[in-house]
């Protein structure tokens, strides 16, 4: 039988994974809603946000109680610190999914603007980064986490490309300004999701290797 200590650590992890599962579902729904312009799906994403927020609060509560009761050290201490940091990251990813869902009807208004495929590709990349970051957390795989961080550049490049294309479009066709701005905003929300997956991955490296890689240039990483 597992000791109370282990059971409580398991409960923190289980809560994070439940929250992460909901966030991943939200991102999958956003991708489908963008493709199908399904407004009900978009409303569902918005509705799920309150529940995700409550998981963030619950993770903080569990982690605070754990620290007060057990004064963890070493890996256990890092595990709890990382749990407290992952909650807000997941919550912000969900917020960005909501932001995209709220723009959905404008985005879907015909005629669609051209970089829609790029937007979907960007969302696919960012969503995969989130899923892989969660998998790296579960597997405590610092190598995989570093690989995810390296993928952020591709998302940034797509964001920049969409931004440039929309500027050109707005100059050419002032009637498209509203839709083009929505497109720029959505790209920006997706770019933030990839950043949040990067943050999660950085925390995974800290969890495993005990040293922070935040704000450290990739080419100086001590791997």
């Amino acid at each position, binding site marked *: 039988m597992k000791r109370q200590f282990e059971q409580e650590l398991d409960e923190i992890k289980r809560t994070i994974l439940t929250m992460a599962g909901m966030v991943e579902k939200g991102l999958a729904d956003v991708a489908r809603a963008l493709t199908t312009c399904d407004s009900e799906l978009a409303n569902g994403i918005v509705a799920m946000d309150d529940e995700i927020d409550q998981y963030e609060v619950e993770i903080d509560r569990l982690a605070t109680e754990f620290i007060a009761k*057990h004064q*963890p050290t070493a890996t256990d201490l890092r595990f709890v610190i990382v749990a407290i940091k992952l909650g807000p990251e997941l919550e912000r990813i969900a917020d960005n999914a909501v932001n995209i869902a709220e723009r959905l009807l404008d985005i879907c208004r015909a005629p669609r603007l051209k970089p829609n495929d790029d937007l979907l590709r960007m969302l696919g990349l960012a969503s995969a980064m989130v899923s892989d970051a969660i998998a790296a957390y579960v597997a405590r795989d610092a190598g995989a986490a570093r690989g995810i961080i390296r993928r952020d550049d591709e998302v940034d490049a797509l964001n920049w490309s969409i931004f440039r294309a929309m500027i050109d479009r707005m100059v050419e066709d002032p009637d498209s300004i509203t839709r083009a701005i929505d497109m720029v905003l959505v790209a920006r929300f997706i770019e933030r999701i990839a950043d949040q997956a990067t943050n999660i991955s950085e925390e995974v490296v800290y969890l495993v290797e005990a040293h922070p890689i935040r704000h450290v240039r990739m080419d100086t990483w001590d791997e």
Partner: protein
Amino acid sequence: MSQPNGFALESHDLDFFYGEVHALKKINLKIPQRQVTALIGPSGCGKSTYLRCFNRMNDMIEGIRVEGRVLVESEDIYSSGVDLELLRKRVGMVFQKSNPFPMSIRENVNYGPRMAGVRGRGRLDEIVERSLKQADLWVEVKERLDDSALDLSGGQQQRLCIARALANEPDILLLDEPASALDPISTAKIEETLLQLKQNYTILIVTHNLQQAARVADQTAFFMLGELVEFSDTTTMFTNPCETITEEYITGRFG
């Protein structure tokens, strides 16, 4: 006393036997001056035995055998001709259970200096005041120095024992679980006292309270089955220990 190599206590290939029991195995360790070093490990790991090597308290046990070298301020204390009385004056000790003498507070503190030949009320009172201040007890007892030490609370008695050790003007303080029988407030006072004392003394402390080691110690040594498993700065020990077995111990997975 300032030492050229910066280490107050050292052991080199130290083996210790209780009869046939091999209690310490080839311990090599250097304890820096004017810092707090904690010894941790499960019961029976040898940490108290190791602590007691440094003022030869183990000599009082029959059938013990010591091999290797134990240095106090670079002097081999197991070599012939060592003055044990002088050694124990230089290396003071405080035990788990406070053991004030059945005398007044004043007499408890000036007992050591009187035995060492210090005379004169004024001189002795100076020592009493200085020692009680260093042990953070002066304010609480200055109006009742001639009351019995046995009337003090458990935490005050323990600080009195620290004052009594300090009255001999040691260079080094050995503490064997000094706060394990105390309530949290008394424990916190002892810990604060240790942090003050390390400015002038080298402190070696055995503790079962890992959080206490994390709070007060600059370095921590982890012992297990008579062996020194890991010795590192305390932050490293409690955030990212090198050895898996250390991690398992400090995270409470065994012991």
